[in-house]
């Protein structure tokens, strides 16, 4: 396995761990961005150029800022008085460890049967465009409608209700 993969993997996992473990919520959000960047580089390492740039554009460009805005709007940057982890944190950790054990076991046992074509797939943006409007035109339209609905929904949910607060 290439050396680059190890670096990127450690970068992403370190970012993810920091995003979950840190006390200061804004630091968590910034660590999350590091995880997103690591993932984008992993996508590029897998020669999925379009997905890698889309990931950077969507996640680092928008979702990270969204999370940070939410933290500030809910005054989340002050550390809560009664501890950062919920009371039942041990159970949560156990469940997560169990899930990882199952997944790890599944991956290791089926390692021999996994496909491993090493040919680098030559993907041009034109192919992706044709696929999007060709074979995947229905999901494209559905995602478009979904995004519009989500946008309007988020605005209405987070809007100040004038009448109730009177």
């Amino acid at each position: 396995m290439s050396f680059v993969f190890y670096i990127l993997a450690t970068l992403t996992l370190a970012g993810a761990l920091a995003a979950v473990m840190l006390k200061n919520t804004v630091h968590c959000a910034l660590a999350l961005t590091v995880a997103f960047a690591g993932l984008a580089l992993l996508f590029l390492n897998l020669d999925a150029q379009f997905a890698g740039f889309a990931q950077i554009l969507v996640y680092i460009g928008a979702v990270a800022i969204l999370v940070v805005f939410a933290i500030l709007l809910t005054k989340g940057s002050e550390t809560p008085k009664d501890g950062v982890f919920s009371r039942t944190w041990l159970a949560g950790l156990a469940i997560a460890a169990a899930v990882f054990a199952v997944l790890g076991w599944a991956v290791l046992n089926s390692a021999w049967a996994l496909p491993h074509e090493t040919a680098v797939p030559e993907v041009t943006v034109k192919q992706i465009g044709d696929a999007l409007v060709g074979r995947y035109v229905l999901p494209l339209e559905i995602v478009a409608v979904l995004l519009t609905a989500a946008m309007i929904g988020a605005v209405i949910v987070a809007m100040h209700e004038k009448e109730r607060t009177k």
Partner: protein
Amino acid sequence: MSPLAGFLIVAALLFSIGLAGALTRRNAILVLIGIELMLNAANLNLIAFWRYGPHPEALTGMMFAIFSIAVAAAEAAVGLGLVIQIHRHAHTTDIDAMNRMKG
């Protein structure tokens, strides 16, 4: 261990870290961060299988990942909208305190 297995292990680890975050943290936004991580882990799996899969020219894995990125962004927007609304109403983002259904 084939490179694909390596990617799968990293994706599984990322998924469990996200799950741990979602289950153990007290702040609602950190739960959303955990969910984002889990979604990203799924994307990583999709692209890994597409890259090392039998015929990558079908672009199925990558398309799936791109659509999932779009959906995850929409989900994050609505989720955070809800969190902000709950905070404005109940003045807290602590999940343990959100146990009353009263409007």
